[in-house]
């Protein structure tokens, strides 16, 4: 933990299961354990990157923290207060401080509303300011994210993908949040636009001291923006550490595989690259017994097939869930 940093979000053994119908005609239902016992602290002012492949539960984690999903079990505390407490008025106060930026700038903006309406909606809902003050705030927000305020009467389809993402960011800023979940916020963008948006997110973070939970499948993006990174695999955290520690000294075989699978940044030496991961990600509906990664893991031993390893510290601030790494085999 960084010295002197206070915890803004505490996640305690959070579980989110979805009940789904299985294939075929039977009425049999099965459980998809999207998030299966995740505990973590998010410190004030940090950018905590969450990486993993599709189906690892990274988006569900973000959405459950935001209470867009109901939890199955566990706790989420915002500055010590339970986010899932039943009292709606207390909830409203807390959610003012938490916002989300979504992946798809096309489907996350109402196509029938003008931009000023979209950005100003949080102000309308929470009845903040007079109509004139709200308009002024919208203009200010548009300027803040690099949009010309004179475009406020336009509709979303009149903007490019990058500009739409800026609209989504302006909306998230409207209520002066402290904590923002960025769920694949730059994944749908072209690389030149992606670079602009990453810079914008960093500018805003420096100016206002936001805390980001930055969810992305693109390791390079997370490696660039995050200050701390956690890696998820089939609903659980497999490794978490400070950025430089995780990039330089990752220990979990899955993290290793992710880094090795990542395409080269230059064609030099591409023939020499070796890869270790075999096969597909198993279905999260019926994850393998024991450590979920063992069928793809080159180091798996008997114990890995029997019991799921706990997340344990391997060096200060660096934890991994792997029997082999913990030398407990």
């Amino acid at each position, binding site marked *: 933990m960084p010295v002197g940093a206070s915890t803004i979000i505490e996640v305690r053994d959070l579980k989110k299961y979805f009940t789904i119908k299985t294939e075929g005609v039977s009425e049999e239902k099965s459980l998809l354990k999207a998030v299966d016992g995740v505990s973590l602290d998010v410190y004030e002012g940090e950018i905590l990157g969450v990486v993993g*492949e*599709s189906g690892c539960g990274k988006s569900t984690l973000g959405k459950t923290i935001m209470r867009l999903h109901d939890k199955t079990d566990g706790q989420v505390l915002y500055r010590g207060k339970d986010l899932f407490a039943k009292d709606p008025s207390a909830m409203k106060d807390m959610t003012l401080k938490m916002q989300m930026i979504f992946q798809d700038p096309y489907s996350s903006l109402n196509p029938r509303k003008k931009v000023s309406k979209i950005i100003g909606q949080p102000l309308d809902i929470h009845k903040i300011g007079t109509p004139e003050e709200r308009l002024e705030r919208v203009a200010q927000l548009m300027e803040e994210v690099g949009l010309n305020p004179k475009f406020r009467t336009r509709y979303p389809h009149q903007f*490019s*993908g*990058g*500009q739409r993402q800026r609209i989504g960011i302006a909306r998230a800023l409207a209520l002066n949040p402290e904590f923002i979940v960025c769920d694949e916020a730059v994944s749908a963008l*072209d*690389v*030149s*636009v*992606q*670079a*602009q948006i*990453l*810079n914008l997110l*960093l500018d805003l973070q420096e100016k206002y001291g936001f805390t980001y939970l930055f969810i992305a*499948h693109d*390791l*390079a*993006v997370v*490696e*660039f*923006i995050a200050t701390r990174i956690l890696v998820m695999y089939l609903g659980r955290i497999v490794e978490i550490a400070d950025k430089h520690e995780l990039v330089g000294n990752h220990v979990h075989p899955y993290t290793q*595989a*992710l880094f*090795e*699978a*990542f*395409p*080269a*940044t*230059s*064609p*030099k030496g*591409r023939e020499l690259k070796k*890869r270790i*991961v075999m*096969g*597909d*990600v198993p279905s999260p509906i019926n994850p393998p017994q024991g450590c979920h990664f063992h069928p793809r893991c080159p180091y798996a031993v008997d114990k890995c097939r029997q019991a799921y390893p706990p997340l344990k510290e391997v060096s200060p601030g660096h934890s991994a869930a792997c029997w082999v790494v913990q030398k407990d085999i």
Partner: protein
Amino acid sequence: MAEKKEILLSIQNLSFSFDTQRGVVNAVRDISLDIRKGETLTLVGESGCGKSVTAHAINQLNPMPPGKVDHGKIMFRGTDLLTLKRHEIEKLRGTQISMIFQEPMTALNPVFTVGTQIADVFMTHQHMTKQEAMERTIDLFKLVKIPAPERRVNSYPHQLSGGMRQRAMIAMALASPEPGLMIADEPTTALDVTIQAQILDLLNDLKHKIEMSILLITHDMGVVAEMADRVVVMYAGRKVEEADVFSIFETPRHPYTLGLLNSLPSNTKYKNARRLEAITGTVPDMRTIGAGCPFENRCAYASQKCGQEFPAETVLSESHSVWCHNYHMVKEG
């Protein structure tokens, strides 16, 4: 590349436009490129740059109308593909020019098993019996490393994972007597990175096993670095730089290519940086592009000339050309 191999396909001065309700979009303007036997040529660029339209022009997959070839030729083994009739091009698609797509689920028919769909290619184009065709299909599944191929041929597309579906698509693309050219349109964009790595390995492996040429369309410079022999960079319908893959990454000469490389967060220069060198602005409206260089409005090196005429080719070396008035101002890295 040391030796120059025979040219398999040659696109010559292709211009392609779409007549839309809101005006004419000149999607591709005066593109020329050669694909040699056994090489991987990648077409790289961002959305709307015309890379897919160029590739789809080869086997006439662009909807026409509203699409229209304004100019140019596509020469393949002595014939101009643009003059072929529908049934002629269809025959070519199954035998000499194959294609794999970004989302294999939409390219495969959901109501037939993958085995049947691939066997169909053998039966239609090579007049095999059903049993022969099935056996060849199982062989192909082995070639593309699908586990338990005898069982997998009887699977329906939805029963396969994304990576397996893409392998099945690749198998289908190889179901021809003489695989000549494979057009791969963003083949790994929809896949997770560990699966992407496997598919790229497979394509590289196949390219060496059977002398196949690959035209790879991608927006991802990482995929380019892993796969390409030569690279064509496109921007807003124009070819702006063409080179061997090493020159593109080490000595890019077009401001856009340089900007694209600088936009990558994985670029080693950002090890300890807190900002990226982003290209400012956005892609111009394709309906109102003038005669000048389309990158002019975002370019740090633009001069007056750039807005007026599109630059001619500057040959920098045998394998490196750039289309930029001010290329000499662009420093590498």
